[in-house]
């Protein structure tokens, strides 16, 4: 697979604040990458560097093999971007602004535009000052999705959208993915990332703390096991790889390091297994692991 986006050792300082310390990750062709982290972790700063809105202090960032600062004009021909906060000119209508963005981008599709306006249930004749946050977001999204690009960068795209519209957005991203395009999706909504992303990049305080496919990340993380046995389940408490053991009647609930799973199961069968449930960690578990304590 060819690399669409490659970021290595990105650093950025604003005055005294070191906003980015070390940001490194890739986006391959046809891949949806979820970029997650709390507010202030550096998601938007990273994205702004990728778009040439601000300049990195050091590191290397390339899109389509081109430098994001020097060749931003060439890069922008083939990307679509929706900022985290879509601010619109109050006196222009949503329809006018969509047309303007499409025209400035260059490769717009009118039919797609009209289709998306209908799908997102936007009133294009309304002046933008009358739009709610969700409606402003829709304008940004429709403009970005109506143009043909190879890389789509969305910064918190569904903030302010209602669940139905979130659904519409996710369906549209799935279509992009099927068409073999790449997506960098910065988001708070972990269920959304879980559904759409092939790969997850977790950023904390300007550093990437985890990157990989969901499968890989899950493997690194403990699963939660619920086990009911005929004999005393508390014997499992001291086996290597078992953590946070809690007993409720005959049930033992604990987390397991995946590499010890086999040993634990062997021990468990000696106790006579009546019930066994294993839940892989959700993205939320993965995420929280980096932010708790």
């Amino acid at each position: 697979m060819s690399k669409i986006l490659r970021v290595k050792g990105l650093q950025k300082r604003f005055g005294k604040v070191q906003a980015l310390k070390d940001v490194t990750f890739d986006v391959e062709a046809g891949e949806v990458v979820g970029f997650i982290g709390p507010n202030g972790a550096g998601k938007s700063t990273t994205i702004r560097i990728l778009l040439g809105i601000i300049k990195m202090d050091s590191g290397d960032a390339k899109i389509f093999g081109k430098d994001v600062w020097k060749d931003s004009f060439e890069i922008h021909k083939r990307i679509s971007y929706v900022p985290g906060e879509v601010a619109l000119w109050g006196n222009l209508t949503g329809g006018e602004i969509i047309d303007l963005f499409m025209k400035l981008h260059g490769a717009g599709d009118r039919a797609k535009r009209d289709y998306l306006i209908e799908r997102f249930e936007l009133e294009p004749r309304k002046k933008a000052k009358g739009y709610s946050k969700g409606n402003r977001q829709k304008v940004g999204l429709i403009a970005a999705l109506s143009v043909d690009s190879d890389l789509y960068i969305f910064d918190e795209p569904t903030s302010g959208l209602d669940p139905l519209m979130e659904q519409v957005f996710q369906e549209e991203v799935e279509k992009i993915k099927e068409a073999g395009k790449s997506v960098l999706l910065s988001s708070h909504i972990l269920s959304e990332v879980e559904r759409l992303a092939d790969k997850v990049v977790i950023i904390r305080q300007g550093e990437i703390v985890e990157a990989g496919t969901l499968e890989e990340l899950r493997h690194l993380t403990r699963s939660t096991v619920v086990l009911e046995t005929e004999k005393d389940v508390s014997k499992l408490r001291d086996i290597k790889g078992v953590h946070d053991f809690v007993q409720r009647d005959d049930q033992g609930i604990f987390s397991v390091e995946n590499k010890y799973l086999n040993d634990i199961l062997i021990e468990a069968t000696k106790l006579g297994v009546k019930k066994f449930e294993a839940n892989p960690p959700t993205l939320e578990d993965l995420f929280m692991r980096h932010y708790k304590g």
Partner: protein
Amino acid sequence: MKEQFARWNILFIQYLKRDWKKIIFWVLGLGLFASAFVPAMEEITRGEGLLGMYETMKNPAMISMVGPTPIETANDYTLGAMYSHMMLLFSALFAMTISMLHIIGHTRKEEDLGLTELIRSFQVGRQSNSLAVIVETVLINILIMFFVAGVMISFGADSISTEGAFLFGASIGVAGIMGAGIALIMAQIMPISSAATGSSLGIMGLLYIIRGGTDISNADLSMLNPLGWTYLTYPFTQDNLKPIIYALIFSVITIIIAFALEGARDMGAGYLPQKEGRAEAKKSLLSVPGLFIRLNRGIIISWLIAFIILGAAYGAIYGDIESFIDSNELIQQMFAHSGVSIEESFTGTIMMVMAALVAILPIAIVNKLFSEERGLYLSQIYGTKVRRSQLYWTSVTLAIGVAIIGILFAAGGLGGAAISVMEDSSMDIFDFLAIGYNLLPIVLFFTALAALTLGWMPRLGKVIYGYLTYSFFLNYFEGMLDLPEPLLKTIPQSWIPNMPMEDFDIGIFIIMTGLSILLMLIGYLGYSRRDMIEGD
């Protein structure tokens, strides 16, 4: 009925707490604007000044702007008569505007923002907010009345009587209250707050223009105009109380209508449907220049109109210029330059004033690019194939364009009006335009400074206005005060020959223009390299 207004008094107290800083600013700002020029006016009226002013103010162009005076002979034109003639209508307009903005800002605007919904979820009547805001506004206007009267009386001028001063203050106060009533009605009728603001100001503008017409043709007709009920009180001359009573009746009726309208509508709804815009953009919008012209359209048109009106207003006094200047020693000093006609000398000075005003518009346009950047409006555009050079040079070019057109309008307005009122003029329209365009490099220089800060220190964009103001005053008072040469050289106005007293200097014109372009280029270097500042 009572339920409608439940707990309005709690809101009222709350609003006074919320707004106290604004109220102080409001009362002081408007109050001083209306009252504090008494000593300055006294200065102008020294000697034969009042006679000259009387002649000047009798000009129909002036009457259509500031209103008529009941005085029929120049000898009766006292300081008080002149003060209320010149200042009352403008003060009333000012009072009306602020009250309108305040009312809509705290009624319809809060409704649009969803604040009202929150307030109404408490045990608060459905119309308590409107009642609290209107009572607050009435109270503020009463405060203004007393403040204005107090300040005016404190100067102790002969012709400024206590009754007159209170009438003057009351005229301004009722203007504010009438504005509040009109705005409250519009807040009910219109579908959105900006439409309510626009229509309220529009009504005021319309009333102003109508009274301009009726003041010249038949001042009795102005008595039918709510705006007329302010300056037609004629403080310090006739002390006519009747208009105040009309104004109060009008205010009560409008406020009652507004409450009836509000009681019968749903929250967030209006009586007029929301005006729909275009579903698709016109071709003219679809480019960076198209967008920037559209974004700056309102401010460009309104300033250009202001330039032409201002030019015409100065031009209108050319007819009486000699009596005006002869009558006052201070003004004589300002305008007297030996060896040229008084018209020419006056034109040179006035054009310098207007060049400084014209410079505001291009500075505003260049600064606008930064306020757009900071307000996140351009974020999505940064992701398209628009180069920074396009954003920068489109703004700068637009600014240069309006600088050129602005001088045309200001000099054209001045020249056109001047030539039409002078019986035998020594100057033709091209003389006026030449004098105006001689000053183009000054305007370009200020534009270039704005561009330079946009590129390197965008947060300091507003400082350019400060420098412009400084240069304006230094240049304006240059003739009166004996200022040292090095101090004068700190402003671009002094680098250029003062036409028509001095001859046009092509060398300086080219050097200053070139310097301005150079500064713009340096600004671009900064703009193309710096981080865009978004959202802080």
